[in-house]
C-alpha cells in the first residue's frame, strides 16, 4: 500500500468516525435498529453488509450460477 493510499484511507476513516460521533450525539434511536444506537453501528453494518454481499455474490453465487453466454443457444425456446 502506498503512502497516498494510506493517507486516503486515513481521511476516510476520520470522516466516518466524525460522522459516527455526530450521529451518536444526536440521540440516534430513531427507528429501533440496534445499529443506530450503538457507537460505530452504522459503520460496522455498512462495512460488514457490503463485505458479505461481495463475498456471497462473487465467491459463492457466481461459482454456482455462472455459464458461458452461449449457454441457451440451440435450446428449443417457446
Amino acid at each position: 500500500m502506498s503512502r497516498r493510499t494510506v493517507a486516503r484511507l486515513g481521511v476516510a476513516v476520520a470522516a466516518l468516525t466524525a460522522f459516527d460521533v455526530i450521529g451518536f450525539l444526536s440521540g440516534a434511536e430513531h427507528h429501533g435498529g440496534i445499529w443506530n444506537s450503538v457507537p460505530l453501528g452504522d459503520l460496522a453494518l455498512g462495512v460488514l453488509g457490503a463485505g458479505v454481499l461481495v463475498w456471497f455474490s462473487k465467491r459463492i453465487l457466481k461459482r454456482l450460477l455462472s455459464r458461458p453466454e452461449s449457454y441457451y443457444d440451440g435450446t428449443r425456446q417457446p
Partner: protein
Amino acid sequence: MSALFLHPAFWLFIGIVVVFANRRRMPGMPVGVIVALGALLALLRGVEGTLETTVAGFRLVWFHADRLSLLFALVFAIVALLGFLYGSHRMRAGETAAALLYAGSAIATVLAGDWITFFVFWEAMALSSLALIWQGGTAGARRAGMRYLLVHATGGALLFAGIALHLAGGGETSLGALASDSPPFWLILGAVAINAAIPPLHVWLTDAYPEASTSGSVFLSAFTTKTAVYALLRLFPGTEILVPLGAAMALYGVVFAVIENDIRRLLGYHIVSQVGYMVAAVGIGTPLALNGAASHAFSHILYKALLFMGAGAAIEATGLRRLSDLGGISRQMRFAVAMYAVGALSISGAPLFNGFISKSMIVSAAGEEHLLWTELLLVLAAVGTFLSVGLKLPWFAFFGERRGVAVRPLPTNLLAAMGIGGALCLLYGLFPHLLYSRLPYLATYAPYTLDHVVSTAQLLLATGLVFYLARKTLAPSPGLALDTDWLYRIPLARAVSATTGALAGVGPVVSTLRGEAVTRLDSAARRLAAPGAPPRRRESFAFRASIGWTVLFAAVAVVITWLVVWLRNPG
C-alpha cells in the same frame, strides 16, 4: 363526453392515430412529447370525479380519480414525457405507437375504477410492452419477447381467472381491497406478483428489458412493475406475506446485480430490488408504510428512468452493453455521466436526492412496527444498491481503464431528457413537501433529521470503503448467471416437447420410450457432469397417426361409455 378529454390516457391514444397518419414522415417528429405534455397538463389541471359508460352490458368506469391513482398517473405522464424526449431523435412510428399505447394503458390502468377496465388495460399494457421489446429488432429481443409473453400471458390468465371468479362469486365490480384467503384473492395476487417481479417470478424483467431499444427500456423501467405496486396498494394493503417477500426481493435483486455484467440487466435487477421495498411497505400496511410505497414508486420511476437513460446513453454512444467491454468513456460524455450520478445517488438514498425522502420512509415504517429483520434487510439492500449502481456500474462503465472505445456524440434531446430527469430528482429531494403534499394516506414524515442524514451518510461511506478495497474482486467478467428462467427455458421446454410427443399418438410414445428415454437420461447425466455444455436440440414430432386410431378410439369410446353408464345404473 367532455370528460373524455380530461382522461390523460386519451391524449396518448390520440397520439397513436397521429403517429400512424404521419408514419412516412415520422423520424424527428416528437408526437409523443406533445401528447405526453397534453396528458400531463390534463392531470395537473386537477381532474376529479368519475367517467363511466356501459359497453356490451358491462358498466365500465374508465376514470376514477383519487389521490393514489392520480399520484401514479402523474408520474407516469412525467416519465412518458421524458421517455419520448429521450428517444425522439430515433424512435420509429411503430416504436412510438407501442410506447404511446404502453404509457396510455398504464395510466388508464391506474385510473380504472372497475375490474373489467382494469383487466383490459392491464392486458393492453402487457401486449404493448411486448411490442416495445420486439422493437429492439434483434434475434435476442425476439426470443426474450416470447419468454416475456409466456410469463405475462400466464399473469393475464391468472388475473382473468381471478376476476371471473370474483365477479361470479357476487363480488363488487368496482376495484377494492379483496377478501383475503379466497381463490380470487390468491389468483389476482399471483397475477400482480408476476407483474411486480417478485422472485421467483421476476426473470421476465431482467431477461427482456435489456433487449429493448435504449429508449424502449426507459419506458419499460417505469410502467409494468409500478402499476403492479399500485395494484398491491389498491387491492392488497396490509397483506402480511408481502413483508418477507418484499425484503427478500430487495436483497435478491442486489445479490444478482453484484455479479451482473450487462449494464441494463444490472439496472433491471435493481428494479426488482427497489420494488421489493415497495412490496414490503404494502405488506406492513400502516399509513406511513403505504405512503412510503407510493412515494417510493414515484421517486423510483424518476431515478430509474434517469439511470436507464444513462445506461442507454453509454450504449448509444458506444454500441456496447457489457461492463467488461466498456470503460474510460466519461470524458466524452460528462453531462450524461453527471446525470447518471444524480440517479445513482437517488437510488442509493443519499440525502438531498429523491430516493432519500421515500426510501427512509419505508425503513422508518418498518422500524416503527418493530420489524427488525425487515429493516435490517432493507438497509443491507440499500448498501448493496450503492455498491453496484452507485459505484460498480459507473466505475467500470464510465471510468476505469480506457479500452479505446469509440464514443459518438450524444444528441441534444437525449441530454435534455437526462437533464430534466436529474433536475426532478434533485427538486423532489430538496423540497420533499412537493411530493408529500400529494401522498394519499394520512401520515406525516420528516426525512431530514440529523440522525437520518448522518446514519445514511455513514452507511454510504462505509460501502464506498468496501468498494475501494474490493474493486478487483468486483471487476466484471463475461458470461451469464442462471436465474429462475432456467426452469422454463430448459426443463419446461423439455416437458412440453415430451408432452406433445406423447399426445401425438401411440407410435411416437413407443419409440420415445424405447430409444429416446435412454439417450435423454444419458444427456441429462452428462449435463450434470459438465454444466457449461449447451443442451442438445431435439427434433419435433410429425403428429400424424393412422386414421385407424380414430376408428379404434371410437369403438373403445362406445364400449367404455356403455360400461360407465352400466356401472352407474346397472340393470
